[in-house]
């Protein structure tokens, strides 16, 4: 394996690169599917050259990985999680539960998925790997995925995930609830998901990321890539809650491909992790597409919360709406980067992006970069960003009515 690095990186980062390539080789030794092995090998070649981004890279200027590269997370693991450990994380409404532990699908912790309604199929990515010929679809968007650093890392260490398909005209009433559990320290959970909604299908997906320990020494990393193909007139609703412990790392790249008249709604809530970065890459490849991408991040301590979107309007009459909010306390850092690109074919585009931030301390900060790139002439696009300190007059007004200062701050923050 040649390890020629084009760019200059620190010895520490070089060791990390070597470590993850070694992990990838270990995985390849444990898997049999040639295509999967070849996919990891392609990623090894790219990763060996590109390594991890550094703060000189514009896209990583505010989300610093210097601490991250000091870790040597491992991919292969065995866990001993019991269903009882998970009760606190289960939603109070009816769902079909799917559990991943340290990145690996757990059949015994998940609901019986053979009982899913007709027209809904769920397979673990690992099982898909075992089916020769079924893996081509996993590499369909490989070029796009491997343009992002953690997409490359995902391709490098790709091990499990899910493949979910909803047949044409099927409406899945009960949400699929995917729980990603970090059960042991020092694990790299690499998850590769693929969701296919066929024509006029509909579903709700709820994804939650948790750690079983809040201990500071309990560090883990979750790195997800999810591809979604949303066919004509299909409707997808997604809610993500990221509440890993405050020592861990979270990276999620979602690649969404929408066809004519489809809708996609996603809401990301960022609460946990030392460094988290959630990104939607949204391709509006048909007419009359609608989507909403919202996020809310609450950061404190030393957390970095990075949420970004790249929305590509490629056809006429597309409508995209976005609202991204950050509330940051202590020394937390918020990073927002949103791009709306309107192709010259995408006339009548309606694209709106808003970013609002509330800083609760003088040390908290947010770096925001809303961007528009418009090549069509008949469009309606707007972006805005506003950052404010908590208003002292509002606090005093509530206090003057007998409400304690801490409660007043809580009320004002909640209203935001």
């Amino acid at each position: 394996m040649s390890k020629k690095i084009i760019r200059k990186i620190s010895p520490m980062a070089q060791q990390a690169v070597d470590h993850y390539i070694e992990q990838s080789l270990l995985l390849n030794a444990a898997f049999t599917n040639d295509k999967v092995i070849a996919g990891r090998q392609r990623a090894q070649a790219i990763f060996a050259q590109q390594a991890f981004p550094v703060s000189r890279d514009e896209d990583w200027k505010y989300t610093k990985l210097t601490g991250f590269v000091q870790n040597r997370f491992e991919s292969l693991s065995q866990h001993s999680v019991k269903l009882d450990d998970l009760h606190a994380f289960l939603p109070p409404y009816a769902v079909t539960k799917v559990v991943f532990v340290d990145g690996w699908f757990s059949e015994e912790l998940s609901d019986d998925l053979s009982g899913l309604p007709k027209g809904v199929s769920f397979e673990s990515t690992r099982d898909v790997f075992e089916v020769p010929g079924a893996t081509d679809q996993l590499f369909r968007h490989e070029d796009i995925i491997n343009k992002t650093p953690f997409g490359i890392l995902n391709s490098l260490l790709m091990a499990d995930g899910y493949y979910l398909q909803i047949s044409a005209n099927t409406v899945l009433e009960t949400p699929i609830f995917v729980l990603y559990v970090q059960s042991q320290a020092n694990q790299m959970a690499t998850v590769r998901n693929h969701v296919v909604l066929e024509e006029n299908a509909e579903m709700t997906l709820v994804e939650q990321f948790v750690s079983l320990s809040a201990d500071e020494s309990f560090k883990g990393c979750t790195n997800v890539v999810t591809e979604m193909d949303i066919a004509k007139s299909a409707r997808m609703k997604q809610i993500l809650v990221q509440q890993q412990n405050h020592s861990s790392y979270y990276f999620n790249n979602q690649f969404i491909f929408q066809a004519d008249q489809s809708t996609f709604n996603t809401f990301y809530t960022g609460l946990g992790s030392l460094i988290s970065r959630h990104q939607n890459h949204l391709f509006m490849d048909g007419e009359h597409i609608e989507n909403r991408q919202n996020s809310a991040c609450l950061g404190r301590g030393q957390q970095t919360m990075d949420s970004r979107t790249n929305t590509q309007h490629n056809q006429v009459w597309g409508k995209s709406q976005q609202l991204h909010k950050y509330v940051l306390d202590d020394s937390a850092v918020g990073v927002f980067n949103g791009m709306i690109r309107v192709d010259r074919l995408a006339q009548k585009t309606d694209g709106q992006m808003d970013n609002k931030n509330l800083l609760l301390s003088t040390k908290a900060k947010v770096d925001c970069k809303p961007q528009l790139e418009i090549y069509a002439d008949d469009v309606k696009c707007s972006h805005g960003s506003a950052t404010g300190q908590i208003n002292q007059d509002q606090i005093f007004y509530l206090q003057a009515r007998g409400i304690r200062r801490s409660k007043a701050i809580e009320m004002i923050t909640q209203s935001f």
Partner: protein
Amino acid sequence: MLLKVENLQAQIDEKQILKGLNLEVKAGEVHAIMGPNGAGKSTLASVLAGRDDYEVTAGTVDFDGEDLLELAPDERARKGLFLAFQYPVEIPGVSNKLFMQTALNGVRAEQGLPPLDMFDFDEYAKDKIELLNMRDDLLERSVNVGFSGGEKKRNDIFQMALLAPKLCILDETDSGLDIDALGLVANGINTLRSPDRSFIVVTHYQRLLNYIKPDYVHVLYDGQIVKSGGFELVHELEEFGYDGIIQKHEQAQ
């Protein structure tokens, strides 16, 4: 004695505003504090309510047997001091209902009373809304958002009615009100007058006082009370303006 202010001195940004102010308010009394712009009227109201922009440099304030200056603004409010704001603050996203229910239950906890749940609170608030002739949707709306100047002031009076304080300080509540709104606000205040509730009405103009008819009138000038009297002092001011009284005060010194 409900409130006893002695030799109160306060400054903001190193600038001395109150220069030894004395004031005594007994239960049930209505005091008006008048004075020209810059005399320190709003400073007095703010210092009594506990706004921390102001630094008290000397003096004492006794409120119902307690050292008021030692208390945080919310403690003062829970113990029965109420400030009606010159500019009531807008708080988008916080409903009047949540705001007032939280506030009222804070005051009730202080008095050893159990909190009111949503339904009891609704009932309690409904009476006050009718009493003050307010809009029915008042509780559902965000605090002061989209309210006219008059509505904001009336919302403050409504809050006063809910919290039933011992001492109400009205900081230029009449500023920016047209004659109808002024009448409504004054009516609200008169409705809340009682033998165990005192008022300090801070104002620049006499027109609110014509409605309220205070028991005592004080003229504040240059950080001190330079003249006190009964309601007749309002008429004297109407006739001679602040200048006459100030000149006499300065000659006397």
